[in-house]
């Protein structure tokens, strides 16, 4: 399969334009034209267009966006909220930051169009606490949009009004989960909420709420401008369009690259990453952020960057954070670090996650420090399995999946560090 | 009514002497055996001498202590619960150290009721109560048979329990 030509890019075609974050530059690039077009359409037509595009949520779960929007009960009489999830915290993922910092008006335009589609008049951008620079840029972009009349009452003379507020998180991973984000935005402890009721019916302040990822919303203007069918031309099968992939790890050119879905993973690493650094041998690739199970070199050579291919190899495309691990890197250290991350970030609400993440970390720490016992291998697997699918949100699964994945695909390396014996120590 | 003839014992039985000698034979055998072999004497000179008992003998209970001398018992009442004679009476109280939390204020065993079955020892989760070797429990006053916490700790001469739990 051919790689995406730079001029066919959807999100990052003009990203290198200087001062793109200024509204003048953005308008000169043809910005806010999609908004005008959208406002001339009916709201249902906008949703229809998005449905046609086959756009799926870019946050990690991959839920079809148009379908999500159509779940909202428009006639409930309650205000409807559109929340932009910019709490990008998955290790290995840094794609939203590019849009937030370089092209904030693309996001704002996407939000306005989406808010028009879902009949929302108040929208929030929940930006990750650590993205201070991005928050500043967005703040200014919102101000500019207000001045130009893209935000506020009767946008561009239409009946649609929208207030957009930036909210900075305090740095919790779990606030990137949609109900966790809602709790946090409501001023509560950032803990995911039970479903049902689903946010589309009862979310932020018990009102219908749509939560979309930055990349998802930033794609909307292009879809409106060029039509859903045009978007569906990109990609393969159920994986339509392009995605921002975050390439990190032991490659020559790590970074964010837009690419059409469905291209071979090896090609992607070779072409964009410039191959392995120092000619190191590939050991494993984490394809979709730290919570997805890894791929072995053999699987990497067969895998393509789309949902179905990843499912075939027992992993997920997730948030598009591709982490390349070289031969000389210790998987034990990696797993210790990952389990520590999830132990630290568990909200502590559900027992399996609260206790399980701590236990996984204790075991990985002991193994990494050379104190692992053969029984720990089975214990790790059993504990991780107990954590799968037993909690409110997916953090427990996210913590368990990499452990299970690495144990399954790289058992020898881990077993080599385990000793017979029973003495436990941390 | 005089139908039955009076039964006459045979001569050797009427004399008795033979039977007496026969009976004395065992006594005399032991008498002479003990006379010439005092080491094999089955009777011992209690209380100067005492018979050795099995280590598993179940006598008066011992309450063990921790290494710092505090009572081991946590007043969980499992011994009292399992006691078939209902002879253990515990009153629990709060210990100032939150790591200890609960200690017995009173721990009384009514040894007149105790059947020395050892169930208390079996039930104890922290090795706080053991069946001791002491069986000399005589007294002139019934009240003396209520053994208190202090009595039972003294009975074990402050045995330190090192069992971890």
């Amino acid at each position, binding site marked *: 399969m051919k790689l995406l030509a730079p001029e066919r890019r959807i999100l990052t075609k003009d990203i290198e334009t200087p001062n793109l974050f200024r509204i003048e530059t953005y308008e000169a690039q043809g910005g806010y034209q999609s908004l005008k077009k959208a406002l001339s359409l009916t709201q249902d037509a906008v949703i229809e267009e998005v449905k046609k595009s086959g756009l799926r949520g870019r946050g990690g779960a991959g839920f079809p966006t148009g379908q999500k929007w159509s779940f909202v009960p428009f006639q409930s009489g309650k205000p409807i909220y559109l929340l932009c999830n910019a709490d990008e915290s998955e290790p290995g993922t840094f794609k939203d930051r590019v849009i937030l910092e370089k092209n904030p008006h693309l996001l704002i335009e996407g939000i306005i169009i989406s808010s028009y589609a879902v009949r929302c008049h108040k929208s929030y951008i929940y930006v990750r606490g650590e993205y201070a620079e991005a928050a500043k840029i967005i703040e200014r972009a919102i101000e500019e949009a207000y001045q130009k009349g893209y935000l506020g009452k009767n946008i561009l003379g239409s009946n649609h009004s929208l207030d957009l507020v930036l909210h900075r998180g305090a740095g919790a991973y*779990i606030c990137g989960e949609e109900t966790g984000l809602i709790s946090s935005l409501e001023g509560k402890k950032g803990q995911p909420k*039970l479903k049902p009721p689903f946010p589309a019916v009862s979310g932020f302040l018990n009102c219908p709420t749509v939560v979309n990822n930055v990349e998802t919303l930033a794609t909307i203007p292009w879809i409106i401008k060029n039509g859903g069918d045009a978007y569906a031309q990109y990609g393969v099968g159920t994986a339509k369009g392009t995605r921002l992939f975050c390439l990190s790890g032991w490659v020559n050119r790590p970074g964010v690259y837009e690419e059409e879905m469905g291209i071979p993973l090896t090609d992607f690493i070779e072409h964009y990453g410039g191959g392995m650094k120092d000619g190191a041998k590939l050991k494993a690739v984490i394809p979709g952020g730290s919570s997805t199970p890894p791929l072995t070199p053999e699987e990497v050579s067969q895998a393509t960057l789309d949902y179905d291919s990843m499912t075939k190899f027992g992993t997920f495309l997730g948030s598009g954070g591709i982490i390349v691990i070289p031969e000389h890197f210790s998987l034990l250290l990696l797993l210790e670090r990952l389990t520590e991350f999830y132990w630290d970030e568990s909200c502590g609400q559900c*027992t399996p996650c609260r206790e399980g993440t701590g236990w996984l970390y204790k075991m990985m720490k002991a193994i990494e420090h050379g104190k692992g016992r053969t029984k720990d291998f089975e*214990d790790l697997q*059993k504990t991780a399995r107990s954590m799968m699918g037993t909690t409110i949100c997916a953090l427990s699964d996210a913590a368990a999946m990499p452990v299970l994945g690495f144990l399954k695909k790289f058992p020898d390396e881990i077993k080599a560090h385990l000793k017979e014996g029973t003495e436990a120590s941390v | 009514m005089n139908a039955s003839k009076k039964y006459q014992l045979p001569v050797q039985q009427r004399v008795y002497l033979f039977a007496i000698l026969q009976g004395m034979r065992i006594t005399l055998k032991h008498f002479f055996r003990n006379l010439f072999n005092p080491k094999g004497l089955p009777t011992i000179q209690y209380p100067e001498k005492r018979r050795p008992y099995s280590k598993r003998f179940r006598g008066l209970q011992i309450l063990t202590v921790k290494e710092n001398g505090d009572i081991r018992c946590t007043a969980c009442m499992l011994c009292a619960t399992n006691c078939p004679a209902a002879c253990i009476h515990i009153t629990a109280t709060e210990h100032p150290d939150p790591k200890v*939390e*609960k200690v017995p204020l009173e721990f009384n065993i009514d040894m007149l009721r105790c059947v020395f079955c050892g169930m208390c020892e079996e039930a104890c989760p922290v090795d706080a109560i053991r069946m001791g070797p002491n069986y000399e429990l005589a007294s002139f006053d019934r009240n003396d048979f209520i053994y208190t916490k202090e009595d039972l700790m003294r009975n074990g001469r402050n045995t330190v329990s090192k069992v971890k739990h």
Partner: protein
Amino acid sequence: MSEKMVKLTINDKAVEVPAGTSVFAAAAMAGIEIPHYCYHPDLSVAGVCRMCMVEIEKNPRLQISCNTPATEGMVVKTKTDKVKETVKNVLELHLINHPLDCPICDKAGECKLQDFYSGYGLYESRMDYEKVHKPKVQDIGTIMLDSERCILCSRCVRFTSEVTKTNELGIFNRGDRAVLGTVDNKPLKNDYTGNLADICPVGALTAKDFRFKQRVWFLDKTKTVCTLCAHGCNTVVSRNPQTQKLFRVEPRRNPEINKSWICDRGRWDFHYVHDENRVPEPKRFVDGKWTEQTWHGAFQTLGEEITTEPTSMLVALSAQMTNEEMTDAVNTLSSLGVKDFTWVVDESVVSDSKPFDGILKHRDLTPNARGFEMVMKSLNISWMGTAQAVEKLKSKRFTRLLVMGLEGYEMPGLANLLLAAPAETKVALHATSQTAFLEKCDWILPNVSAFEKSGTLINAQGMSQKLKASVPKQFLSRDGQQVAWGLLQKSDRKPLSAR
């Protein structure tokens, strides 16, 4: 049936429940127990313990039953191998950081961790790393908090936010560092703190009053009703059958009256039953000092006095008496010729039918004011209000006053009545405990407490409920029925109607 009903199948059992009922509640209605910690029928759903997992047909993932609404045609299974395995695993995770100090823990014996461990677990602990340590033995008012035992089910947090609306408790920090606590360790400040110890499924919250007093398996339980105010909360009273002493009062769930709660007063005020202030035997004030009397003597003397001059006698019945006691007292005394009856109650608050704090507490501290009104009405005997009684006592209309059925220390309306009686009025008091007005009295007869008698009470909402004796009669006390029949017979033979 205006509500929409849905039919579903749980473990091959057909169940019909109102629409919107959770699968958990539906299973409970069908008598199927699902293990749980965080679910409580009178609190909102938290869904955090992850124990109530069930298998629902056509759903590949197990679902928590507490937050899954029952739908038409749903097929639920709660005992499949998959469910059992999952529950076992979740239970294991509950236990890995639990201190397992059951010998010390007061909850042992009624602890849900112990119960479900026996039902689902029974494995050796795989976890041999150092457990997470959290603060133990924290004093938060009437309750002791042990964060290490806590499984963070958040029932208590929801209780303080939803029932008492005082929000003292919260879960601080996150992950396995999360601890339950109050802000700055301030003590709990509401009148329902005791319920926290009940709803805690483990031994994290224990009531100071009951702490270390008894192991729960020594206790016998009696289902009865609280008599400390007009609300008539349903309770369970525990006594040790060996010592016949009361140890604790707990709420009994009744969705129409008290849900699952009782107030702290109802819970901890039972101590007067074994108090040294109880009246042990009948006493008479003769020649400047109290002398002990027999019941026979009391009945003879008092009965004779009543018979000779029945109209100079005012009989005041405490609204703490049961319907049966009142009926017998009024019947026997009026057959002796007594015409004037009144009640001992705070009349200004009797008409309140709703708790004043919006939860359970009533201003009327007597349990049976409604019962008194109904008994008098059914017997067709007129009675005077307290104001009139006070007026007539002051005007020396009566030379004798018999007050029956007093209980406890708080006897609303009694002070009014006794203070109104002139010094020469002869007063006989039938009470459990010695009051401040003893110098006004000539006779004091020991009454039984509400924990020692059975009968019917009618609460403020007009519901009649059964009171059941939970401990034997203390000292030489007699209930109202025995006193009534004794006075009629003027002797201490076994009264006809009483046991």
